[in-house]
């Protein structure tokens, strides 16, 4: 439902006023970031896939812009304009249009243009507290707008990251799995690949080169790579240096010699990813899962439980929440807690609200350091529909 008639427009505006008054009362400053955004930041976070999902275009000067697909990046940029060091604590709220290209064609649940009303907390160091505050306030807004029936889906990428750092494996494997964290399919393939015997991991990098390289002797590796290039009449070109190339050749050589990732370890990671349970029970499930493997991720588990506790204290009915370890992994910028509010009538593919923690975003937008940040947004057309029933 898009506000195509004046009446729908008024209904949406009135709903937005209600939501914003809840957010402002909770100490969030109402702001209106720019609709038109430089495409660069988005391309950095989402990559070229952005162009398949958003309205990206070139202006007469040849600079690329996009119609904002959400308000989180615009808000981070607004915050940075005000506070160039980025770390300043601030709480914002907003209501405005966002735009998405719908490859299957637009429909009322998946419009090209829709309005988001939401909140962001930037710079709050007590992460679980800020997470709980964000979700509780979004739920309060939904309730004030008249929503009665809802259920909650939550996830926590912090747990998966903690698991990957606690499991013993070569650092480069950890980096590789970390790189695929937001791509469930590629992650699974990588995991499978690492459990294969070394020969099967081999690539078509010249055998004669790999054989002679000792991964622990980088200087020697560089000389051997240089000699190989020379012997084969290959000239250097491009920005990658001989050092970069030979370091990576050495990594590949090391990989070939490394033991395989034990199957039990891969199964443990797969087992974790498969966890789907009521929020309170999920923590215990994860704990059981890793106990036998002798792995300790106590701080991440404590953070998970503390967040649930704080949510309860805010009056959120946690028994309506389901934890899914897989949830949040298709949205590239979330780094920790994630949530989604679903309404039975609209179905799982059309949540009325969602959000999470994105600690890496401020730095990508230009802050000198990483800044903790968490936010949530309400899909206002869907909310209006759900409230009307």
């Amino acid at each position, binding site marked *: 439902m898009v506000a195509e008639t004046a009446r729908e427009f008024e209904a949406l505006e009135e709903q937005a006023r209600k939501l914003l008054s809840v957010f402002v009362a909770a100490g969030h400053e109402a702001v209106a970031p720019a609709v038109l955004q430089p495409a660069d930041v988005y391309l950095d976070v989402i990559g070229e896939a952005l162009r398949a999902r958003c309205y990206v275009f070139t202006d007469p000067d040849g600079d690329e812009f996009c119609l904002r697909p959400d308000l989180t990046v615009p808000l981070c940029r607004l915050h940075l304009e005000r506070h160039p060091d980025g770390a300043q604590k601030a709480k914002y709220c907003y209501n405005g249009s966002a735009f998405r290209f719908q490859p299957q064609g637009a429909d009322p649940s998946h419009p090209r243009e829709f309005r988001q009303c939401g909140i962001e907390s930037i710079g709050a160091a007590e992460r679980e507290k800020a997470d709980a505050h964000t979700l509780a306030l979004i739920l309060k807004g939904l309730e004030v707008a008249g929503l009665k029936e809802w259920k909650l889906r939550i996830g926590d990428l912090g747990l998966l990251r903690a698991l990957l750092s606690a499991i013993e494996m070569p650092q480069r494997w950890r*980096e590789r799995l970390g790189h695929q964290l937001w791509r469930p*399919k590629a992650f699974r393939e990588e995991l499978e690949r690492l459990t294969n015997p070394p020969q099967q991991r081999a690539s078509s990098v010249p055998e004669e080169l790999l054989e002679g390289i000792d991964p622990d002797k980088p200087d020697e590796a560089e000389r051997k*790579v240089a000699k190989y*290039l020379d012997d084969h009449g*290959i*000239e250097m070109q491009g920005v*990658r240096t001989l050092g970069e190339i030979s370091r990576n050749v050495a990594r590949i050589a090391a990989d070939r010699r490394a033991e395989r990732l034990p199957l039990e370890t891969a199964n443990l990671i797969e087992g974790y990813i498969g966890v789907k349970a009521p929020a309170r029970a999920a923590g215990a499930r994860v704990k059981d899962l890793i106990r036998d493997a002798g792995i300790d991720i106590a701080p991440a588990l404590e953070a998970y439980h503390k967040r649930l506790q704080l949510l309860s204290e805010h009056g959120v009915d946690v028994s309506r929440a389901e934890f899914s370890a897989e949830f949040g992994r298709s949205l590239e910028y979330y780094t920790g807690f994630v949530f989604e509010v679903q309404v039975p009538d609209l179905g799982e593919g059309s949540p009325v609200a969602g959000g999470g923690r994105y600690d890496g975003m401020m730095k990508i937008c230009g802050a000198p350091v990483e800044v903790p940040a968490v936010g949530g947004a309400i899909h206002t057309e869907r909310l209006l529909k759900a409230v009307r029933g």
Partner: protein
Amino acid sequence: MSEKLQIALPSKGRLMEQAVGVLADAGLNVRKTGNERGYHGEIEGVEKADVLFVSASEIAWYLKTGKAHLGITGADLVQERMTDWKARVELLKPLGFGFADVVVAVPDCWLDVRTIAHLDELAGSFRNAHGRWFRVATKYVNLARQFFVGHGFNDYRIVESLGATEGTPAAGTADLIVDITTTGSTLKGNGLRILDDGVILKSQANLYASNVSEWTPHIREAQNVIMSKLGV
């Protein structure tokens, strides 16, 4: 639109010669009408057909919009210009000329990069070292994007290049390229190597029919004559 079948052929170079040649071999003699430098023609014995000489890349657009009923052009151009090409056109017959591959090529000195997966693995450290993602120069923006998405490779930026793409890595404007190649010798000459899994499309010139143009019984009749001569 006139009541005649519109068939679009490449307007110059070897592609035109070969397209006209294939038709002639099938007994379909194409003749220019009016000015020798003009862009209109006819097929001897097929009165209900007009020949339009158009640049090869524009033929895809003629088919896409229905301005032409039939057209001869490269698969690379059709697939690049129409993301929904399977719905918009029908491939009637591969014609056996204009062979070329659309490929991903990297500097040969990247001894450590043999597959798309290697590129993906390397993306993070490349960015740490150079402060930006890989730049991919190409005129096949859509083909490149679809191919990379299919391989789960997303950490790159496209630099649109309309000529001399193979020179962009040496010039420093791009790190790798997606381009068309027939023998591979131009790539080699520029110090580039095709990735092991880097063939995006094996292209050749095809005869296409547009699904969106207006097909009257008259026009169908003309198409049937052409098709039966070509043995489709």
